């Protein structure tokens, strides 16, 4: 099939950027969306296009590394539910379709070039407290701490977050609540996560706010686009833990 890709081109962080239309021929239904961009890029290189090939982030191409992600026709990761951009296949498109392709748009994710953004803020949220402080070697025997199935499953469901940033891109406020809540839920429901539970919650929420993400007003757009289907309930959990943490007396040192 032949398609038109209307792609956001931006030479660098300070460039104002704009859309450019490209015709892509010979797309087959088994190809992935990123392979379609590959095909287009090959032709942009050989034809000596003024903008050159389109920069886009990607790596594993199997939906787990979280490096890829673009807005496709205004939807983070495109039209298929629970699907990363790299796992979107062209059988969902028809000959002649025009597809709008943009980078994540959020103040906290500045555009680097074309479709590539800087998501360093996510790492800094983790660094603020998204861990259990257990130095290598100091762990007890693994089965000493049984974890009931419901907690184990809840933790795992939240831990499936791949840190792609679609939740932020989809949110009208550019909030990072779902990402932060996923990480907090992953650790806060486990027995191992209890000692630092409340300090972690405060620290991560504060770090999130300091990064310039917006506030959550329960639009639930994040849940709708999340490729790993992280439940919105994790945000309720975050709020609960945050309130509890705020009411606790500061730890004596």
């Amino acid at each position, binding site marked *: 099939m032949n398609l038109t890709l209307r792609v956001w081109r931006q030479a660098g962080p300070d460039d104002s950027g704009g859309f450019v239309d490209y015709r892509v021929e010979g797309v087959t239904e088994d190809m992935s969306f990123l392979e379609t961009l590959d095909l287009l890029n090959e032709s942009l290189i050989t034809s000596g296009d003024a903008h050159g090939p389109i920069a886009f982030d990607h790596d594993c191409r199997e939906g*787990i590394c979280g490096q890829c992600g673009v807005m496709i026709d205004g939807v983070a990761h495109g039209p298929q539910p629970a699907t990363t951009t790299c796992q979107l296949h062209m059988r969902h498109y028809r000959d002649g379709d025009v597809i709008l392709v943009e980078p994540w748009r959020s103040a906290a994710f500045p555009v680097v070039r074309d479709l590539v953004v800087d998501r360093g803020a996510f790492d800094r949220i983790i660094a603020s407290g998204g861990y259990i402080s257990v130095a290598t070697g100091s*762990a007890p025997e693994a089965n000493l701490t*049984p974890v009931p199935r419901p907690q184990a499953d809840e933790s795992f469901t939240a831990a499936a977050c791949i840190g792609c940033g679609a939740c932020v891109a989809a949110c009208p406020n550019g909030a990072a609540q779902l990402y932060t809540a996923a990480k907090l839920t992953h650790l806060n429901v486990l027995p191992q996560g209890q000692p630092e539970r409340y300090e972690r919650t405060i620290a991560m929420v504060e770090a999130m706010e300091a990064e310039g993400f917006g506030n959550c007003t329960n639009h639930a757009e994040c849940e709708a686009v999340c490729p790993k289907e992280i439940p919105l309930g994790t945000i309720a959990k975050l709020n609960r833990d945050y309130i509890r943490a705020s009411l606790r007396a500061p730890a004596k040192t």
Partner: protein
Amino acid sequence: MTSTTEATSTDQSRYFDSRLESKAPTGPIEERWDQRRFQVKLVNPANKRRFHVIVVGSGLAGAAAAATLGELGYRVSNFCYQDSPRRAHSIAAQGGINAAKNYQNDGDSIFRLFYDTVKGGDFRARESNVYRLAQLSVNIIDQAVAQGVPFARDYAGLLDNRSFGGAQVSRTFYAAGQTGQQLLLGAYQALERQIAARTVEMYTRHEMLDLVLTDGEASGIVTRNLMTGEIESHSAHAVVLATGGYSNVFFLSTNAMGCNVTAIWRAHRRGALMANPCFTQIHPTCIPVHGENQSKLTLMSESLRNDGRIWVPKAAEDSRAPGDIPDEERDYFLERRYPAFGNLVPRDVASRAAKAICDEGRGVGPGGYGVFLDFRDTAGGATAIAEKYGNLFEMYSKITGEDPYSSPMRIYPAPHYTMGGLWVDYDLASTIPGLFVLGEANFSDHGANRLGASALMQGLADGYFVLPATISDWLAGKLGKQPVGTDAAEFRKAETLVRERTAQLLGNNGKRTVDSIHKELGRVMWDYCGMARSEEGLRKAIGEVQQLRRDFWSDVRVTGEGQHLNQELEKAGRVADFLEFAELMCTDAMVREESCGGHFRLEHQTTEGEARRDDENFAHVTAWEMAGAGPEAGADGAAPLELIERREPLVAEYVQPSQRSYK
């Protein structure tokens, strides 16, 4: 007879190299790691912050090492090419991680895990290292659970296990089909904690483009900042490479698009010996190739073989729907050929069997290169399948557009993991003093074939436990000495070479894209250095690789400039190194005149088509040295590499090599 023996011994001494001394202690194998930890020089806690260590790579091995060194108090700089350390390709590992916990009480033990790994590697691994790996496996699980890694659990809340190819016990710990992601998040979180504590400085979107030596010792690296194009030098008391494997030499593999050989190849060109590069693993359960524009292959976890049954129709070109083919007209070829292990034979065996069936013309699907993986007979039906493998079934259906709940999956082998890598001793030290190599980037523990669920175990053992214990032996000797400054002549020179190479790539202005050359290289390697190799084919491949290298340097087109994010330039540098490395890989495959593990030479097989190993002549690690090479030679196009073969003999002390039988 006598003359043969003499010839062999002279032969072996010709390959002797005093640098290839494993330094493993010689006492009882179960005491060696204790012994070694007692022998190594220590660095006093107050002095640790005086030492600076560079760690390249942030996967399981790199992140675990950087975090642990930081916890110990060393100053660490950690580099990765991705935009976050959490995205390193360890993240994609699906199936699980082995550990000799014996929670299932089914006869497992440290010795059995050791034995299975040595046997699974077709007796081409160093026993001391493998035993240590099995010992440390139990500590890894403890560490991961304490970090909050959400492993699968039973209804009592205790850790669950499953079985995996090549083993008859259930020792594999898992987190649905994303064990790699969960373990990497554990290591990444530990790493971020150290970044916050300022013991580790993180450099994301930085690619190592050269290793710098001063007075014969590793003193630092040269990197390119992928965002700004800046060429930067970093110096330290030691350099640790944890940069993964080189399966992308085949272009199509299950590796992430960015996985590359550059870091270890640059180190090799600077004098680090490269061991067993021809030992590559072709994983049996991947989604078959769909067409010319395909950019990568996707693995379906080996754990599917626990329940799925592999078959093809008995008759070639049987056009009926798979469900309409009755049992007596199906050939469950693994169960038929290997009744004891059936569908759970090791990866190399399963892959070759599938290839043989397809070469006979009995493959299924478009192009005839596929076999069925069928869940029709799974106990508990669709519900049980969804619980165990739900995410894998969804992934399959997204990629192929077919519903694997109603008709069997189609699978075919694909390059997945590389057992070869830089040679290291028992301390994980390479032949360049001060350079250490961890995880898939080294050659050490898997011999000629890696067992399923053992890569995560090795990466984490190296990173959490081995390197942090052994590196102090090197660092202690450096007490009171500052790292060489990055203004030293060696750094200046290396930076200049990197700049010149970058300029050459950008200024070439030829006609061919980087990908088009990479794809051609991949085809040559897959055809001649893939699942079946022969001397004739390998000779042909070496000629074609040299020609491709000439084409690359004379005709490649790299657009854009050096001072911004330029993904074509990144790819070009990696492919240039693959084009050199490929020649070494084929040469190694050619001199190893036996079949073992994933290395199958057509000239060396039994009448039944099984691998024929040659322990008399090939019970050694082949370690290659590059003669007369600085990175300057990179632009010489088709000039053959000057390779010198060295050997580390392997001694079977505890596991006597036998015909590896899974029948």
